[in-house]
């Protein structure tokens, strides 16, 4: 068939139609060129970014959390890098593609043998491993906090979709011994308790980031640039001395066991610097074992549990009386019989006759101290209690720190003022009580406590009592810890010690039960006090419950060990000790 036979073609088309067509096509091509130029040269960012995304990736550079150290740079808490084993499902491919490229099948295609191998290395059940591997999309942790050598062995298997991600795990070399001070962190390395929480900010590091080039299987081929360098967290140096901490911990543990007590706390303070040298509670816990991080053992009782202090508060009333000039060391106080307030009567366990103020403290007479307190208004007494820190939290940043209870003096009835003079009807924490004794161990002034190491001790704190009063109360407290006092068991051969016992009934449901809290707070050496030790035993129930029987021996042992460990020179004669005179100077003997 010839085209010329078509009558339509025989007709000549007008020339403009072909030209018009050409112009239209050129305009369209021009449009394409402009668009191509636009994308290539002007607005190229979007596609360039898209392209880069295929091969480059921004990965975080982990930063480690700072260490917690004791005063001699011993490690109390430290993070080390471990791995999280992650299973990642690739977008699933069709059977055909999977056959064509068998190396690139998704994670869900791990063989049963491979899963078993993986489960063995992870020390997990293989069914659990199989369940944790995502089916279609997404990713899941198979196991977190895996030791580096195990992670290496898993990576060496080269299983598709199984990767190791860096993370940190916190270790506490001293375990339960310093658990309450140091606290612990959660899975994400954030502080949950203790110093870890209180000092979370300075301890936390800042993650950095880096850009890397990856291959199609998302393995890092090359590091391109560092976007942000990681900043490791800072170290925190505590005032705690691990030697003392261990001594206190083990002595407290022994005492709680011996007296079948429910709990106990003990603290050691440096009276010159206000540093907390040791702080132990029983029961305690092992922060390395995450399974048991709950329940009562977590309580840092010295800070969070309040108790009625009992007689340990009496020296403050005596100091108030001496400071006001209305009483002296020798002023006689009639302590015979009982003191009646309406239907209430206050008496002593062992009746006394007429005692001097010093003897009231030495023998711990409730009647005597209540009579002294009655000479003062509730406001005057409240002021003293308030100034030494009762009723307000210590504000050391510790979680759950209790304030204790000290009621407004406007509502005090005479009987309440009397009971408060011997430490009932109010509550304190052991830490508050230990700190309050700073006024006697120092010359009447009160300095803030510190959980971190203090290099320049505060010179003068808040002056609560005069230096003269503090010295006289020190003598009274030395008598109390002496042969005629309530706590001869607090004595330490070679050192002059001072302190006060406390035996308080426990309040249960608004009434006083036949359960006790035995406590002792004291300091040594009296000639130049260096350390304050406070001990509290909750519900001793093995026949003895007096502070002088239960808490004083603990005080004595802890103080003895503290003085010897720190090389404080003895300030008293040592009759039971053997003395040896050295003719040649001996090196290293303090």
């Amino acid at each position, binding site marked *: 068939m010839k085209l010329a036979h078509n009558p339509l073609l025989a007709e000549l088309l007008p020339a403009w139609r072909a030209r018009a067509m050409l112009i239209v096509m050129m305009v369209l091509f021009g449009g394409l060129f402009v668009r191509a130029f636009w994308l290539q040269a002007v607005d190229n960012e979007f596609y360039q970014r898209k392209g880069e995304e295929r091969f480059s990736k921004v990965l975080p550079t982990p930063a*480690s959390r700072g260490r917690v150290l004791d005063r001699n740079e*011993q*490690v109390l808490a*430290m*993070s*080390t*890098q471990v791995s999280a084993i992650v299973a990642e499902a690739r977008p699933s491919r069709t059977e055909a593609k999977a056959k064509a490229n068998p190396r690139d099948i998704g994670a869900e295609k791990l063989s049963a043998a491979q899963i078993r191998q993986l489960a063995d290395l992870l020390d997990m059940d293989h069914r659990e491993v199989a369940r944790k591997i995502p089916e279609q999309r997404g990713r899941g942790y198979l196991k977190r906090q895996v030791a*580096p050598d195990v992670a290496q062995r898993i990576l060496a298997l080269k299983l598709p979709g199984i990767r190791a991600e860096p993370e940190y795990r916190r*270790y506490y*070399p*001293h*375990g339960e*011994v310093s658990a309450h001070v140091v606290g612990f962190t959660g899975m994400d390395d954030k502080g949950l308790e203790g110093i870890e929480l209180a000092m979370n900010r300075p301890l936390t590091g800042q993650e950095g980031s*880096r850009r890397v080039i990856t291959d199609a299987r998302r393995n890092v081929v*090359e*590091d*391109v*640039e560092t976007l942000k360098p990681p900043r490791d967290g800072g170290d925190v140096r505590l005032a705690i001395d*691990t*030697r003392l*901490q*261990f001594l206190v*911990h*083990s002595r407290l543990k022994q005492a709680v066991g011996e007296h079948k007590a429910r709990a106990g706390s003990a603290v050691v303070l440096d009276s010159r610097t206000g540093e907390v040298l040791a702080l132990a509670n029983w029961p305690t816990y092992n922060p390395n074992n995450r399974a048991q991080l709950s329940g009562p053992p977590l309580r840092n009782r010295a800070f969070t549990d309040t108790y009625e202090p009992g007689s340990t508060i009496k020296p403050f009333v005596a100091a108030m009386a001496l400071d006001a000039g209305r009483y002296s060391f020798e002023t006689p106080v009639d302590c015979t019989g009982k003191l009646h307030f309406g239907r209430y009567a206050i008496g002593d366990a062992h009746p006394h006759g007429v005692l001097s103020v010093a003897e009231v403290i030495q023998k711990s007479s409730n009647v005597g101290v209540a009579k002294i307190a009655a000479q003062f208004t509730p406001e005057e007494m409240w002021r003293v209690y308030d100034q030494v820190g009762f009723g307000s939290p210590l504000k050391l940043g510790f979680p759950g720190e209790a304030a204790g209870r000290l009621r407004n003096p406007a509502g005090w009835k005479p009987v309440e003022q009397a009971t408060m003079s011997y430490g009932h009807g109010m509550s304190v924490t052991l830490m508050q009580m230990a700190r309050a004794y700073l006024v006697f161990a120092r010359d009447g002034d009160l300095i803030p406590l510190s959980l971190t190491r203090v290099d320049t001790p505060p010179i003068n704190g808040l002056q609560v009592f005069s230096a003269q009063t503090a010295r006289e109360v020190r003598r009274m407290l030395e008598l109390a810890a002496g042969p005629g006092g309530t706590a001869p068991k607090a004595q330490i*051969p*070679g050192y002059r010690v001072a302190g006060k016992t406390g035996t308080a009934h426990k309040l249960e449901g608004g009434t006083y039960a036949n359960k006790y809290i035995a406590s002792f707070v004291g300091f040594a050496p009296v000639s130049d006090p260096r350390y304050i030790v406070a001990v509290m035993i909750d519900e001793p129930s093995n026949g003895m419950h007096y502070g002088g029987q239960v808490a004083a021996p603990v005080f004595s042992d802890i103080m003895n060990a503290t003085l010897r460990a720190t090389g404080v*020179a*003895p300030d008293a004669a*040592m009759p*039971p*000790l*053997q*003395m*040896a*005179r*050295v*003719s*040649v*100077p*001996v090196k290293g*003997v303090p």
Partner: protein
Amino acid sequence: MLRLHVVLILVLLASAISLVSAQHRSRSLHTQLEREHQRMRMLETEWGQLQIEQGTLAAHARISDLAETKLKMHAPARNQVIVLDSPEAVQ
């Protein structure tokens, strides 16, 4: 004129090649730096583990336990303590 062009083209070529090689060198140096960083992190991890190990081995609880059970040691009783009176201290 032609000679100048040839020279300029050669210079341009040299500069282009040196640019490529400089970029390559910078890449490989960065990779090396990253590798060293990696090594540093690994060594830091190891150091940390050693510190923890030392801390655990030297923990007072462990030492006192070993001293008491393995070496059969005990703290001296108060009447067993002899205090040395050094002449230096007297002075």
